[in-house]
């Protein structure tokens, strides 16, 4: 596989397009078939080989444009053979270094040629103590593109450009590369020319220097696009998983949804394989026949098609009152995702009274369903006693020894009786009762918190204030089911 493709695949992987090894082999074949000449066609073809969902297609298109737009420069370093094709495209900066100097010096402003000669003298004097910088000057003067690019790349290696991570480091790296290439000497040269009243010579040199700056900046930009885009999004995801739920900002909601969804899906995938063959429904003829061949073809032992998937039955109750307003959205989001991946989740929300939100979760997207739940049931002051009474009335008959009841709430009941007796009854019936509290354990019981009274009636009562914690708890839940 050629290097640009490998780099491109790397970039895709950092940008949420998971390219498998098989797919990259296909991609290599595709590139071989199409070549790099017709970019439009190559893009169409590669997209179908590597991107497998609509979102991935969007990411792919963005990455492709970004990656291959830099190529005029990139090609110079990697594949000189393609220079002919690119030459025509790259009309600005690069050719400036090659063609125009001749015209500049000879025809446009003739005084320059004299100035140039003067500069020559100064430069040779300047060049003595620092030979490496002299080469940059030389390169700029002669406008040797290939040599310049090579010098640029080796300087980039010296300053370890591939370590660039953040947007804000762009300036720093650009500067470092320039310095490595011998910026100081060139600057000294420019000021020397200005002192020597050789304004035109100085302007010319600084013009070339600007072009070089531009190209170094491009190089840095490109490297940043390659390495950081993905890393920073992964970085952000890692941070989001650890950060306290109440501290997450609204704009990260979308990211959260993705993370939570992935989390919930992984969890249920791990746990949805248990099944039992049911004892009714359609007769599985082929199996029955096969099993009964031994009995002379008399259908003696029956087999049935339906299989029962043994998945946990979950009743989730979420507090959406003012005291947990900051986290309610995320708890509901998790509930929503759980509802998406587990077939038997019944979700409830309450602050004063309690109501079922499973239906709206089924019908609406999270962007509508979650605010709706908060609007409908939130805003009133919490009353756990009342909520438990409602829950008992609605769901008590549904709770059996396969049911897990999850409460998401801070246990602050505003002084009202939390009715732990109902909780006790529920616990007796259900497989287990889990209480997830966004507050830390050491403030449980302070103020109007009833957690210390509640906790004994739960199978587990845990602090749950970040996604990582949430995942752990839910994993436990599914593991033991």
């Amino acid at each position: 596989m050629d290097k640009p493709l490998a780099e491109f695949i790397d970039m895709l992987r950092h940008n949420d397009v998971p390219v498998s090894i098989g797919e990259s082999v296909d991609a290599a074949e595709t590139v071989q078939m199409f070549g790099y000449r017709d970019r439009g066609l190559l893009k169409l073809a590669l997209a179908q080989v590597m991107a497998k969902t609509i979102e991935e297609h969007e990411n792919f298109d963005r990455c492709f444009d970004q990656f291959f737009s830099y190529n005029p420069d990139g090609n110079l370093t990697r594949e000189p053979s393609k220079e002919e094709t690119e030459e025509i495209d790259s009309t600005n900066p690069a050719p400036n270094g090659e063609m125009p100097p001749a015209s500049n010096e000879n025809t446009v402003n003739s005084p320059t040629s004299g100035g140039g000669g003067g500069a020559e003298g100064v430069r040779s004097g300047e060049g003595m103590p620092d030979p490496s910088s002299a080469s940059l000057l030389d390169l700029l003067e002669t406008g040797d593109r290939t040599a310049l690019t090579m010098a640029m790349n080796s300087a980039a290696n010296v300053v370890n450009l591939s370590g660039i991570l953040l947007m804000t480091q762009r300036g720093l790296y650009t500067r470092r590369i320039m310095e490595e290439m011998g910026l100081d000497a060139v600057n000294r040269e420019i000021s020397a020319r200005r002192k020597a009243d050789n304004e035109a010579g100085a302007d010319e040199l600084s013009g070339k220097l600007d072009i070089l700056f531009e190209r170094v900046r491009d190089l840095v930009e490109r490297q940043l696009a390659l390495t950081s885009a993905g890393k920073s999004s992964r970085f952000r995801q890692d941070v989001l998983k650890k950060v306290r739920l109440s501290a997450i900002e609204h704009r990260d909601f979308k990211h959260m949804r993705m993370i939570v969804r992935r989390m919930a899906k992984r969890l249920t995938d791990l746990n949805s394989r248990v099944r039992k063959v049911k004892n009714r429904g359609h007769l599985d003829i082929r199996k029955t026949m096969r099993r009964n061949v031994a009995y002379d073809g008399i259908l003696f032992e029956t087999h049935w098609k339906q299989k029962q998937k043994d998945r946990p039955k979950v009743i989730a109750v979420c507090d959406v009152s003012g005291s947990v307003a900051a986290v309610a959205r995320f708890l509901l989001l998790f509930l929503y995702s759980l509802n998406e991946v587990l077939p038997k989740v019944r979700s409830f929300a309450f602050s004063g009274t309690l109501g079922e939100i499973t239906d709206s979760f089924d019908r609406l997207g999270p962007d509508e369903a979650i605010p709706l739940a908060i609007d409908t049931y939130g805003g009133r002051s919490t009353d756990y006693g009342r909520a438990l009474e409602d829950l008992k009335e609605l769901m008590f008959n549904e709770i059996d020894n396969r049911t897990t009841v999850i409460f998401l709430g801070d246990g602050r009941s505003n002084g009202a009786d939390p009715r732990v007796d109902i909780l006790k009854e529920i616990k007796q019936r259900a497989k287990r009762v889990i209480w997830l509290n966004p507050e830390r354990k050491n403030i449980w019981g302070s103020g109007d918190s009833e957690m210390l009274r509640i906790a004994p009636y739960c199978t587990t009562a845990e602090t749950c204030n970040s996604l990582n914690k949430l995942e752990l708890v839910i994993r436990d839940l599914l593991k033991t089911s």
Partner: protein
Amino acid sequence: MTIIDKEPAEAIEAIRKGFETAGYICDRHIATSIYLSQKLDKPILVEGPPGVGKTELAKAASEIFNAPLIRLQCYEGLDESKALYEWKYGKQLLYTQILKEKLGDLLEDAVGLEQSMEKLHQFGDSFYSENFLEARPLLQALKSEEKTVLLIDEIDKSDHEFEAYLLEILSDYQISVPEIGTVRAKNKPLVFLTSNNSREMSDALKRRCLHLYIPFPDADLERRIIRTRVPEIEEGLRNQLVSFVQQLRGQDLKKLPAVSETIDWARTLLLLHADRLDVEMVRNTLNMLLKFEEDIDNVSAEVPKLIAVTQQELR
């Protein structure tokens, strides 16, 4: 199948033209996908909103490659006995009956149990053999002597388990029948899987396929589609109705009208001898385009405005 041996760009253009003669207007995007699938021997997973011609694509491909179309419609509960293969149980039972009757004759000269068993083992085990195997669409496609186009329609309607059955076919073009062994494709079929994205396909399946997303066509493409599908319709009306439909797609509707709806509408207008869109007629025929009462109510009020825009565009 000589088209695909040409240079990529040429071959793709040739495929596009081929589809056009088969009455399926497509852009380079789709043609590229067909070319790639032939070159890389990969199935194509076609996604897109309903009615943009996903199934039609497979039909057209079967026409231009002159390969018979084998279609498998997926639904919940579809299992391998309906998609892959099934044993002919009735025949198998008869076989045991016959065997029992003939057993005396066959074992006539055998002495003792041991010899009888030995003799019995000498007969081929034909109980589970190709003779008793009923090929379902997937197996048919593999066993076919000529190249076929295999369409696995609406794969998203099937169960997760069924996806797993498919994996072997999709990656290696073979099926393992436990009692017989592996059946390999004589001619690798051109496989299309279509999905409305009602559920996400597994990564394993996606990895084995090329992914082609067919969106709603742009105005130009849609005009060409209508010209091919409803050639009798006048140019002015055609442009106007396409522009009308394109505008509808920009609105908040429960179900956006797809190409198939545009075609139906064009045919309807043709039947009504319309030569241009007028408010009353559009209102009366909106039910060809929109499939929800709510949508029809919402759009009805907007019709004069939408028509005005189409007229402006024409000028």
